[in-house]
């Protein structure tokens, strides 16, 4: 069990600061760009040098780091890391014919820059790791945190998923069919009949541990104290990630078998699927749907990215912790449960090959 102590998310939607999931922020030119906050608490000189991936990671993580002893681990999942810097450095190589290059873009482009930056800012010498396995980078980061929490129930860990949009990456992945080549907007995404999804980006960060957070005297309530409005303090329900699995397959029958095995007799009351407007991947998601379960989608909010499941996890935690209503625009099929959800399954099939399963529950149920 991985108990969620705090959670925070910078995304294309209103997930940071005052949370509003009812209003759907529209995509622009097939992109869902992160709504970046003012980044209070990060020194401006430092901020200027940060690539977007690092910025949104640190920005989302800040509220989870303030007023806490150093975490026992910082674990980040990112499919692509700082791609903008990476290709900027590539441009330098070509433009200056390998002449005198400045190393800043090179250093910022390495995938471990996000976890490293958090350790730097907080002088944290603990376990520090970066998972980069494309569409399963976040699931692996969660599994890493999970195993650490089992090994040491008292450990608290920062775990998160992050990816950024860059023009170059958009170009490559549009040519590759990951993103749509034709104009599409997020309000009508699921009616699309063309290949690919909408480009998305964001950072979702979680403070987790092997035990539920203790109800401490003076626990910060939302709306009070530094960064508190960005974070939902644990005032209502304890929520935990109870299972994580990940595998590769392009065979729908095999995938369905693994899904069945994962769900077992524990039918979720809400399934969040990674449907992304690409008809080729619909069969995977349809196979995951169940008659008596509410089915909802999130990629019209987050867009497609290798770590979109981190956004879905943030959503699930938020719904379970606060008992907030599911926004209408997310619902594909409404199930019988209208008294707030307790048991959520997140299923994502990145590029129809990389399958991630995450179960999030209220505890005790």
């Amino acid at each position, binding site marked *: 069990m991985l108990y969620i102590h705090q959670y925070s998310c910078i995304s294309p939607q209103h997930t940071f600061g005052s949370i509003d999931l009812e209003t759907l922020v529209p995509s622009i030119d097939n992109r869902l760009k992160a709504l970046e906050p003012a980044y209070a608490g990060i020194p401006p000189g430092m901020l200027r040098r940060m690539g977007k991936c690092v910025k949104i990671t640190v920005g989302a993580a800040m509220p989870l780091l303030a007023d806490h002893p150093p975490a026992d681990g910082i674990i980040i999942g990112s499919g692509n890391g700082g791609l903008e810097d990476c290709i900027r450095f590539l441009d330098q190589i070509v433009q200056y014919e390998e002449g005198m290059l400045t190393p800043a873009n090179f250093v910022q482009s390495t995938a471990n820059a996000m976890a*490293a930056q958090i350790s730097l800012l907080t002088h944290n010498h603990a376990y520090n790791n970066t998972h980069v396995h494309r569409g399963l980078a976040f699931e692996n980061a969660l*599994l890493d945190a999970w195993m650490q929490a089992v090994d040491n129930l008292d450990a608290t860990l920062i775990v998160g998923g992050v990816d950024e949009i860059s023009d170059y990456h958009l170009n490559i992945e549009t040519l590759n069919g990951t993103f749509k080549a034709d104009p599409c907007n997020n309000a009508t995404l699921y009616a699309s009949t063309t290949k690919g999804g909408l480009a998305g980006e964001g950072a979702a960060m979680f403070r987790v541990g092997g035990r539920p957070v203790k109800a401490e005297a003076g626990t910060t309530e939302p709306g009070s104290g530094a960064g508190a409005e960005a974070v939902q303090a644990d005032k209502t329900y304890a929520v935990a990630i109870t299972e994580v699995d990940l595998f590769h397959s392009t065979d729908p029958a095999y995938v369905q078998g693994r899904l069945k095995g994962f769900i077992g007799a524990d039918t979720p009351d809400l399934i969040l699927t990674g449907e992304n407007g690409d008809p080729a991947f619909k069969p995977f998601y349809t196979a995951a749907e169940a008659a008596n379960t509410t089915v909802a989608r999130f990629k019209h909010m987050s867009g497609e990215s290798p770590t979109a499941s981190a956004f879905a996890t943030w959503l699930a935690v938020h719904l379970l912790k606060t008992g907030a209503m599911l926004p209408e625009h997310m619902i594909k099929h409404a199930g019988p449960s209208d008294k707030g959800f307790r048991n959520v399954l997140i299923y994502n099939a990145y590029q129809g090959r990389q399958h991630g399963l995450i179960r999030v529950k209220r505890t005790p149920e």
Partner: protein
Amino acid sequence: MSRIVVTGMGLTSAIGNGTEANRQALIAGSCGIGSLEGFTTRYAGILPCAEIKEANPSMQARLRASGAGLTRTMLLALDAFEQAIRDANLLPLTDQNVALINATTVGGMCLTDELYKDSHAKAEGSAYLSAYDLGSVGVYLQSRYGIKGIINTFNTACSSSANALMYGARLLRHGRADKVIAGGVDSLAKFTLNGFNALRILSPELCRPFDRDRQGLNLGEGAAFLVLEREEDLRAGSKVYAVLSGAGNAADAYHPSSLSEEGEGPFRSMQQALQASGLQCSDISYINAHGTATENNDEVEAKAMLRLFGQRVPPFSSTKGSTGHTLGAAGAVEAVFSVLSLIHQEVYPGLRFEHPIAQSNLKPVTEYEQRPLTHVMSNSFGFGGNCSTLIFSKA
């Protein structure tokens, strides 16, 4: 707690193909560093590199890897991976709970020029569109062998594959896999060559780990994979090369591209590896050091070793003088060397050392030596302050 054992290994580097060829080269004190020939760059002949002198088409034919969109990184990984699973007699992989944990810092960016074109192309892309990212290597191996278990890729710069081995051992202990194939790969690339050159840490001469007059590192390429299993799952009479006794991972938390003066990260990762193994400083028989031969690393690593071991620093050397710095593969390459040291009870020399660094006055092993070894420590420290240490013990 389950003991995690090494039951298979595969390795390709600039000093040889296969574990035995690498061992013989290390014993002979061979150096794989020389002039770069594999791709066009203005630094060919200027910045020495440790290159595997087999071109991609030859590797593709030898490894029966046909099809478009295969990168050199995939091919090097395939070579070492195939050796490891054959060595451990694991085939076929489809019916078992096998996990593949890879590590790489370059991925498909070895195709620096193609990536540049594709990132600016408007009409048609190349065959490599799905091959640039770091996950591409693991995805390729997964689909080639039909692996059903957990697949992951790490990038913590130069400590990446040490973290892959650490994660692999943890998956086994938690019952999330029955067999783990963990390691790493990197191929030489215009991207990294220019990146490290911009940081001014590449040596214009053959590198000299731990020497007073060292001028930086030489980049290398290679791949290594180790098969890990729980000791209690082994059939009677199974071959066991070594025990992975423990691992440590700590952040230096000082600077994005250099280590702190006091070596807080290196010190802690070594200390944690000892704790995780239940060992004392005096139990360590030899250290395969990170020893990149940069001004910063060797000075800090020496200091951290003195901090932890006091005046009784175990015999140590860096094999990067032979293989160059293989970045994301280095942790796994040196894990294989550490295991070879334990199997054969021998220590490989650090090349071209002459004068110790004044502040630490530590001298690495410079000649091939046979000596009794029980526990071998292997260090890997990366940019971003990601420090990892593995300890292997005699089977």
